[in-house]
């Protein structure tokens, strides 16, 4: 039970890792609804656990070399420091990585316990932090080119491609989850492997040693984080982090999985070594940073215009700020645990604690055969006289009662601390629920408004189309009328010239019968000119087409006659006085006179053109 209590900080770290980093694997797939969350969560959970148990040892070994945290209390404190750093920096919206936090916390432990930090291991780790995103970018470019070529060469139907992408996202996601478990389990449980030794379990097919059992527990914590909280992250952060096409999402996840796999596979490292190349450092790397590296890789391949280069600055800030913050927190927390809770935190400090406890033991039990070391006694600050005068019962009682008082105070502080933590967590979860409710409301409102905007846009477009159609129709009708008018004019002109010709011929002819026939012909032409059916039709058409215009004119100028309205309609068609004269079979002078009367009736300013006034009316 006590082991579980100590493991709680690591489990919390695992939970937050699962909640946050699963979005790097299935964020786009779930965010774009290509894969259901339920399916993604099940696949990710299973493969994270498998990766942790099967392949988690490699990266853990490197972390152990950096600082072998040897006691349970120290492991608890180091993991808690890393978890608090991740939590606090996430709250402050600062770039953070679990891998960098745990390394910083271990270095903090090294400092506190005077344990020398292996510089070679540290350089190896830091170099992978930089090479991880770069490698991710390179993989992403290569894979993206490959995917593009395949898509171009194979004539796959869009729907089949969609189906393959779904399967691809699941398979690549499973590989990504496996690699995440293999590479990042060291962050979660690494510090405990040196402090906890569990008996090996025989499962008939295979045996599970202490480290694997711890990794199984850590893997379950990550899976728990994926199931309980990653949906929220996938639907909010996941989508904004990677607004990518489905093909690009596969590439990004695959390149991230490859990088994490490379930095955690002992087999691959051995294989590389066997061909004479240097071994691959097995180090936990930040999956988020590798993802960012991969996205930048794709961005660079596409021309680099869409890349937000300030993100590189935030990664660099994460490399420096996270380990420092985690190291400082770990140092002070270890000091607190060591001095207030009197817990062994390993290294040099374990000696101090042991000797303190021994000296105290001697004080309380004078019959004890233990003889403390001179230096140790001096270190405790307990005077030598006190020990010599062991029979001084009053002193002993006082020391004893002080110890009890300290224990009570510490117990109370501990209980109060846990109560505060519980309240804080309760408050945070309440606030979180409120926030998520608000977020849901905002997103539903957004959707509603988007739909509204869409329908409004559609109706506006429809109206514009309708207006355009009506405009075309109007123009066509006007043209039609003008054509009609022109044909009447043409005909009338022709008839007039024909009549003139007949009169000219008649003047030269003496034959009576011919003169009569020509007279008849001339009369017929005159009649046709005065009773022209086409003209009637045209006038009817004009009054039909301009019914609204005529109605407006009547309302504004009730004294207007039908002839005046007709003239206004013709002016509206932009016909000249000569043309109107021809249509109405009157002289152009009469048209001018009618125009003058119309102008007076409509009270048009002498400076304004009558036709313009009528057209704008």
């Amino acid at each position: 039970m006590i082991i579980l209590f100590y493991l709680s900080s690591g489990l919390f770290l695992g939970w937050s890792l699962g909640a946050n980093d699963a979005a790097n694997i299935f964020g786009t797939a779930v965010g774009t609804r290509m894969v259901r969350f339920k399916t993604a969560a099940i696949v990710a959970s299973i493969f994270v656990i498998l990766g942790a148990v099967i392949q988690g040892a490699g990266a853990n070994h490197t972390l152990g070399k950096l600082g072998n945290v040897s006691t349970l209390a120290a492991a608890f404190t180091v993991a808690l420091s890393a978890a608090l750093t991740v939590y606090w920096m996430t709250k402050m919206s600062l770039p953070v990585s679990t891998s960098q936090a745990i390394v910083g916390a271990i270095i903090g432990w090294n400092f506190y316990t005077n344990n020398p930090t292996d510089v070679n291991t540290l350089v190896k780790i830091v170099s992978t932090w930089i090479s991880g995103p770069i490698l991710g970018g390179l993989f992403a470019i290569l894979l993206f080119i490959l995917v593009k070529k395949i898509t171009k060469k194979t004539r796959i139907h869009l729907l089949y491609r969609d189906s393959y992408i779904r399967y691809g996202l699941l398979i690549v996601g499973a590989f990504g989850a496996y690699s995440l478990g293999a590479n990042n389990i060291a962050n979660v449980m690494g510090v405990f492997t040196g402090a906890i030794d569990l008996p090996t379990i025989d499962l008939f097919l295979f045996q599970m040693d202490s480290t694997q059992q711890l990794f199984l527990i850590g893997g379950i914590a990550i899976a728990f984080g994926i199931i309980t909280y990653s949906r929220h992250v996938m639907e909010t952060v996941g989508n904004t982090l990677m607004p990518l096409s489905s093909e690009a999402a596969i590439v990004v996840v695959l390149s991230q999985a490859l990088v994490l796999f490379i930095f955690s596979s002992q087999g691959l490292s051995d294989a590389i070594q066997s061909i004479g190349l240097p071994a691959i450092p097995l180090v936990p790397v930040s999956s988020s940073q590798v993802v960012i590296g991969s996205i930048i890789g794709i961005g660079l391949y596409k021309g680099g215009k869409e890349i937000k280069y300030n993100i590189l600055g935030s990664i660099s800030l994460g490399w420096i700020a996270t380990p420092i913050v985690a190291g400082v927190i770990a140092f002070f927390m270890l000091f607190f645990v060591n001095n207030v809770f009197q817990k062994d935190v390993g290294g040099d400090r374990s000696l101090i604690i042991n000797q303190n406890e021994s000296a105290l033991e001697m004080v309380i039990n004078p019959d004890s055969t233990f003889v403390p070391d001179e230096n140790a006694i001096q270190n405790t600050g307990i005077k030598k006289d006190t020990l010599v005068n062991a029979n001084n019962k009053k002193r002993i009682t006082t020391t004893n009662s002080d110890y009890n008082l300290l224990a009570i105070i510490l117990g109370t502080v501990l209980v109060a601390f846990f109560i505060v933590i519980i309240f804080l967590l309760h408050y945070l979860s309440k606030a979180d629920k409120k926030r998520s409710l608000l977020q849901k409301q905002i997103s539903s409102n957004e959707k509603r408004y988007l739909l509204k905007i869409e329908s409004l846009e559609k109706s506006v477009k429809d109206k514009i189309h309708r207006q355009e159609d009506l405009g075309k129709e109007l123009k066509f009708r006007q043209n039609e009328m003008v054509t009609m008018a022109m044909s009447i004019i043409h005909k009338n002109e022709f008839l007039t010239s024909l009549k003139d010709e007949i009169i000219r011929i008649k003047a030269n002819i003496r034959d009576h019968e011919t003169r009569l026939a020509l007279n008849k012909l001339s009369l017929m032409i005159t009649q046709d000119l005065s009773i022209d059916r086409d003209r009637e039709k045209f006038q009817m058409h004009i009054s039909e087409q301009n019914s609204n215009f005529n109605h407006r004119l009547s309302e504004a100028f009730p004294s207007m006659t039908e002839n005046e309205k007709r003239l206004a309609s013709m002016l509206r068609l932009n016909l000249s006085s000569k043309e109107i004269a021809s249509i109405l079979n009157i002289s152009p002078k009469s048209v001018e006179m009618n125009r003058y009367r119309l102008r007076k009736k409509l009270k048009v300013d002498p400076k304004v053109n009558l036709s313009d006034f009528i057209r704008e009316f």
Partner: protein
Amino acid sequence: MSLLYKNVKQLVFDIDNFIDTVEQGVLVFKEGVINYLNGEKESFAEKIERIDRLEASADKLQRKIDDEFYRHSILPQNVSDIEGMLDKVDEIIDITKDNLYQFDDEIPFIPKELTNDYIRLVNTAAESAISVFPAARTFFREPLKVREMLAKVYFYEKEADKISRSIKRRLFHEMKDLRQSEKIHLRYFALHIETVSDKAKNLADLLSILALKMSI
């Protein structure tokens, strides 16, 4: 992961079937108008029946395709574009059906001198629509090739415009014997037939944009 392989196969079949149906509709429309112009009443009535069936079948298929797309959230990033494209395909069969019905309802009088012009117009408009369907099919397989397949559509659309304009000019400039109402009536029929090629052009425009979008 609710979309199984056999569902995809069925959906691909449905989309192809939908485009085939609309294409058949255009051919039936063309034949129907020619039947009308040649005075073949029985064949024309049969074409009306056929286009009715084809349009109903296209509508049914489109609804089914819509349902499948949304139920299984297929191509979530392109679904609205594809739906819009299928809508435009459906508009073509809608307009051809409406046109054929207009011939049936309004029985326009088409003078012998104009019959050939109208036949040319309907052939060109139909050709424009028929040229856009291979591009619509290709969009699902090789979006990058779509743009080069659209040149024919634009060519025939322009040709249809020219023929339609020449019919209108002939009507109003040369056909003195016709009554004004007849001219206007015939002018509308030229416009109706021309709309088929306009719809094909709209679909071609959309396909061209979608192809560009897919290539980015």
